[in-house]
């Protein structure tokens, strides 16, 4: 073995990795919050009885779920300027993540909505609630509760998927790693450390989502 490991070679560049972690976190938080919001609206549209809107959302979902994230990202960043929509790297990355998570979470949340017993909805109707009230007070929380583990996984997948945003020079964590190893040729050490950083971020994100789930769905201790 001629290769000598030198993790110390990364130390001078720690700021790049730190900035990368921050940017990846920003992308993930904005992408997750807006993406899940989009998913809730999409799921409502899919589950509603408005056929046109439901079909439009259906096309969006299938389009996104059946094409690669990288291509979606390139389309937004390199393709849209042809239509006069010029976005910064960060804007393009966050938009791609929102659109991507929006499609996947639409299907996940829709499954949760469909699992709400019809009797719940009829009871709400018989109490003179309108559609919006029924969705907001009766449907969405139990629906999210049912699919929270699946949704959490999808958010983690999107966070990890943000690594491809390095391809449009969004300066997230993988971008930082690529940059450092281009400077010092310490590919093993750099990607080893970055793998560890992603792992830690995933675990923290999962834990955070679990805590959020507990806050949203656990019973306030009344009894």
């Amino acid at each position, binding site marked *: 073995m001629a290769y000598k490991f030198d993790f110390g070679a990364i130390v001078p560049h720690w700021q790049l990795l730190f900035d990368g972690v921050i940017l990846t976190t920003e992308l993930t938080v904005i992408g997750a919050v807006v993406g899940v919001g989009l998913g809730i609206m999409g799921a409502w549209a899919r589950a509603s009885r408005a056929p046109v809107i439901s079909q439009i959302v259906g096309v969006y979902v299938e389009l996104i779920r059946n094409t690669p994230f990288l291509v979606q990202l390139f389309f937004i960043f390199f393709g849209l300027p042809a239509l006069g929509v010029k976005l910064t790297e960060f804007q393009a990355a966050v938009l791609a993540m929102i659109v991507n998570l929006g499609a996947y979470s639409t299907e996940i949340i829709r499954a949760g909505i469909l699992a709400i017993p019809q*009797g719940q909805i009829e009871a709400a109707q*018989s109490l003179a*609630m309108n559609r919006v009230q029924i969705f907001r007070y009766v449907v969405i929380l139990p629906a999210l509760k049912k699919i929270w583990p699946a949704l959490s996984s999808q958010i983690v997948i999107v966070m990890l998927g943000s690594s491809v945003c390095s391809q449009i020079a969004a300066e997230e964590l993988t971008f930082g790693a690529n940059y450092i190893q281009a400077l010092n040729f310490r590919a093993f050490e750099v990607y080893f450390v970055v793998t560890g950083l992603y792992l830690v971020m995933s675990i923290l994100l999962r834990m955070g989502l679990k805590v959020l789930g507990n806050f949203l769905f656990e019973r306030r201790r009344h009894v």
Partner: protein
Amino acid sequence: MSLVELHAIHKSFGELEVLKGIDLSIDEGQVIALIGKSGSGKSTLLRTINGLEVIDDGVIIVDGKKISDRDADLLGLRLQVGMVFQQFNLFPHYTALENVMLSPQVVKKQSKAEAKQIAEEMLAKVGLADKMMHYPDQLSGGQQQRVAIARALAMKPKVLLCDEVTSALDPELVNEVLAVVRQLAEEGMTLVMVTHEMRFAREVCDKLVFMHQGRIHETGDPETVFANPKTPELASFVGGLA
């Protein structure tokens, strides 16, 4: 004028005509039982009265106002006509108290304090003052159904529809629910119930409506109907129960 009037109500599910021209009037304070075999259309009829089933033809008049199938009309209708279901249908993520408070707050825009006061009153009325902070899955079937009744009552409906409210209950829990319904009847609440509790119907109701194959086959006061059924179908139905 009757509180609720149904004229020539028709309803089909696909090819199957479930209601074949129903005329029925419900007077204020009246307690009506819909009886008949399963498939006779009694539950469907009940569900048309608050618009859970949209009718294909006919007229529904509530408190002098004709109800169309427009959303606004349906919401107005449901403010006047409450409903209790066989499966209770409590909202699992709310406590008993919150279940009862929800619609008064959200629909009637009552303040939290006002809604809470009414909800506590209603839950006390159904004998559950000590279970207000329990979630539905912490309550027995009979308790859940009483919460459901309190929830419907909190909206101060003029008519309460009861769709086989004891059919999903264990036998020992039936009476606690029937006692509440009986109390409501005695207080003058207008009630329309689909029920298989014939003895209860006989004791509590003013009017029995026997449905057969999508039509009102025979109707009258319970004593007469049970003692002297005029049609062989009712005789066989009543006889089959005895």
